[in-house]
């Protein structure tokens, strides 16, 4: 008996497709609770959706639409603000890194461009090996620092040794502020064949002048 209830219910829940098995149909017709089950879905068949009539004219709708629009606008604003915060934070982090990375590079470049007295001919190769970024691309941080080639004062003589300095910020390495009255090196007769990058803080001119500068 319970199985018949369950089978009828399963038939109804599955959509009441086709006719139920005859045993179930007989049971459903005689069983009060199953008749009630049938009545539940029969109550639905008594509904006439067409009796609703035509929808009202499109005057009312904007309320819901406005609510949805406000929700969308709110989410868009929140999203934009969050994205802006992330962008600003990321940019500040990147700029901070760039400043930190640019400082030593610039100082090192200046240190290389204005080496101590003395030098040797093959120094440009070492420079290009040690400071590839500074030799190939212009560094804005390095451009801000005063350079020997830019300052109108007398240029310091090229270094006698080819050993480059480590890229540590040395206060003594910033030239230009106090130009030393050293003799200006005279141009050499045998220019160096090493390629010199054009836009970089031109360390390539120094080696060509170095041999003659040393007494």
């Amino acid at each position, binding site marked *: 008996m319970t199985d018949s209830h369950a089978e009828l*219910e399963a038939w*109804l*829940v*599955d*959509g*009441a*497709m086709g*006719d*139920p098995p*005859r045993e179930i*149909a*007989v049971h*459903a*017709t005689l069983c009060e*609770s199953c*008749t*009630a*089950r*049938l*009545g*539940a*879905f*029969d*109550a*639905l*068949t*008594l*509904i*006439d*959706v*067409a*009796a*609703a*009539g*035509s*929808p*009202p004219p*499109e005057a*009312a*709708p904007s*309320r*819901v*639409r*406005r*609510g*949805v629009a*406000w*929700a969308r606008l709110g989410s868009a604003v929140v999203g934009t603000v969050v994205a802006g915060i992330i962008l600003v934070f990321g940019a500040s982090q990147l700029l901070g890194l760039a400043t930190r990375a640019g400082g030593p590079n610039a100082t090192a470049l200046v240190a290389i461009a204005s080496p101590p007295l003395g030098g040797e001919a093959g120094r440009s190769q070492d420079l290009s090996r040690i400071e590839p970024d500074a030799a190939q691309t212009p560094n804005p941080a390095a451009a801000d620092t005063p350079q020997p080639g830019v300052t109108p004062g007398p240029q310091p003589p090229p270094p006698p040794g080819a050993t480059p300095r480590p890229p540590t910020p040395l206060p003594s390495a910033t030239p230009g502020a106090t130009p030393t009255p050293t003799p200006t090196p005279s141009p050499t007769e045998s220019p160096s064949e090493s390629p010199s990058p054009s836009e970089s803080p031109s360390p390539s001119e120094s080696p060509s002048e170095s041999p003659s500068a040393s007494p």
Partner: protein
Amino acid sequence: MEDRTQHDAFVELHGERLHGFALLVTLGDRTLAGTLTAEALANGAERIEQLRHPERAATWLRAKLTRAARQPAWGHQRPGQPERRNALRKLGVDPATYDALASLDVRSRAVLAATVEGFAPADVHEVAGSDARVRRARRDYLTAYLAASRTRNTQPARGALTARVQAAAGPVLSGSDR
């Protein structure tokens, strides 16, 4: 001009029944039902070329309306229960059925409304999203209706389904009657 005619024909073809569907889904909220119907019809009219087939359009409209009905309607003042009951009574919804529908969620009501309209199982599935949801909606409705009719002590309705089952059991019954 021709577009306008097509649009009007589309609204005329689907408007009334879709409005009734919306009333069932919103449980008799006339304002919301009107809004949802208008929006769904406007969206459907924009895709009138894709929705040339009437049954396809009807299913699409109901699925669209059901999705929209599940969104929160901020700023919308909901009607009271008497107003809702009155709106649905005009469609033929009896009190026990109303109680049962009120206990269901929007998607389950949409399943039952599509069933009321006589949609094919595949179309009901499209409105609901899955067969499991369809079955669950029907089961939940059955349970809620039985509870409501017990509470209200109402006689079960007799309609086409009961007649079908009686017809299937007919010869046995006629034999026992004699």
